[in-house]
């Protein structure tokens, strides 16, 4: 594994591709996570407020349709979703290969997951506080903006971190189908060309990144939670 040839290849990759790959990996992680939150956050809130015991109940067929769509998307394995959705990327971002193309399936795979996470966090907001706001004459919108989201903020930050790491994992997988980033290097050199050294170095880099995401996430969550003395 540590033959001269392998080490040479690795140093070459580190010199020429690594920085770009890290950049691609970060882009492939943060952009879909942000997009998934842009869709998933309102959707998750809606799943709680639109409930028949929620602050603004929606007709139950509407809620059922929403739930079915979310469950359906969540139950499709990511690799299959990737194959199905990649052609769609051509329509959205103009290409169906590379880092840019991967962002579309990643977002589609992640937003239902985010919606469920958000739903759980919003449900955990003390019903009594919502009731107090209602008793003071707050409108459903005011309850969402001034009570539900701010009170669930620490949980939402923590969810963001969880989503980030999940999408990070999906992104590495996307290397198989022409995605970019560290995962693509690991798969292309390590798996297809049997250069295990390259693969393991990339895996270690991925692990380090996950650790950084998680620790930063934990720190921010803790800092933002005023329930902790």
């Amino acid at each position, binding site marked *: 594994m540590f033959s001269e040839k392998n080490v040479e290849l690795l140093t070459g990759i580190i010199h020429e591709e690594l920085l770009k790959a890290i950049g691609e990996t970060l882009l492939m992680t943060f952009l879909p996570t942000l997009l998934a939150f842009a869709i998933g956050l309102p959707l998750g809130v809606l799943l709680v407020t639109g409930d028949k015991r929620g602050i603004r109940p929606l007709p139950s067929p509407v809620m059922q349709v929403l739930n079915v769509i979310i469950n359906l998307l969540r139950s499709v394995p990511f690799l299959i979703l990737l194959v199905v959705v990649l052609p769609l990327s051509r329509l959205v971002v103009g290409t169906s290969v590379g880092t840019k193309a991967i962002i579309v399936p990643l977002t589609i795979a992640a937003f239902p997951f985010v919606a469920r996470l958000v739903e759980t966090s919003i449900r955990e907001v003390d019903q009594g506080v919502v009731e107090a706001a209602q008793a003071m004459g*707050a*409108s459903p919108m*005011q309850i969402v903006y001034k009570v539900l989201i701010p*009170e669930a903020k620490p949980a939402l930050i923590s969810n963001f971190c969880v989503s980030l790491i999940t999408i990070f994992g999906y992104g590495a997988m996307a290397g198989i189908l022409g995605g970019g980033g560290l995962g693509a290097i690991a798969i292309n050199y390590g798996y297809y060309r049997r250069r295990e050294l390259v693969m393991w170095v990339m895996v270690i880099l991925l692990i380090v990144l996950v650790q950084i995401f998680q620790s930063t996430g934990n720190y921010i969550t803790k800092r933002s939670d*005023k329930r902790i003395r």
Partner: protein
Amino acid sequence: MSETIIRIEHLCKTFGTGDGKVEALKDIDLDIQKGEIFGIIGLSGAGKSTLVRCINLLERPTSGTVTVNGQELTALKEKELRKARMGMSMIFQGFNLLMQRTALQNICFPLELNGVRGEKSWREKRARELLEMVGLPDKADAYPVQLSGGQKQRIAIARALAQYPQPQVLLCDEATSALDPTTTQSILDLLKKINREMGVTVVVITHEMRVVEQICDRVAVLEGGVIQEQGDVSDIFSNPRTEAGRRLVMPNGEKIHVLPANRLVRLAFNGATSGEPIISTLAAREGICLNIISADTRTIGDKSFGTMVLGLPQDETEAARALIYLREIPGVTAEEVTDLVQ
């Protein structure tokens, strides 16, 4: 003499349908006067929380009407109702403060809802005045987690009064039930102060007779979703007419397990006569000895009231004479009780 601020007419509330149907409130009629402290007392499951939540329509009554300040809430649309709710407010057993906001920000909350009066500095000034009023001027920047139960309830009270114009009604849903006796006392004093100084009508829901005695002017006894009796606190306390009322008024609400006499009589008397040694007089003059089973003195409003349970002598004629004597004492109500005996 006074005007009605809250009027509840023929209010019914039913939960569920079919076999699981529960009638929580049955045909409730209630008038609460402006400026009074009105108590609604009952044991758990009596329907008192449902009743108070029907006053601001957090719970929509199945039938009947609720009129607050001349406005029939049950007839209002959602938007008008929200506006009407700004004129009354509520405090809870669990305080229900926003955990991610400081005390000051919590008090500002209702003012943010109004929309019209936007100035942040104005809101904060008003919040600080209220903090002062509830006795916590130094806790402005504390988060709820850093406060004790009593402090949290004070912040909740300040928040409840923050709306501008100031709410005229304060609904208290078991507001002291999670607090220890000393803290309960201080919160009750605060509610009394708010009632007297700010003219806020206070509706107190509780299961503790002590709370009613301390601050209420009038009280309604709720049991099984029905108002069993209502009236001035002193009347209900000295002469409860119903089973439910007696259960709450009786010392500890418990039955006496050991039965030391055949018949029991309960005396209720007010401050005017409690100084008179009636038991000794009875013994000295009539030669009849009574057995004191229990005795209790309480202060209701500004007057002192006492209740005493006496065991009558075995001898029927002596017992009858004792009863006649007791009933003749002015200001004393004497009645035979049977519900204490198991």
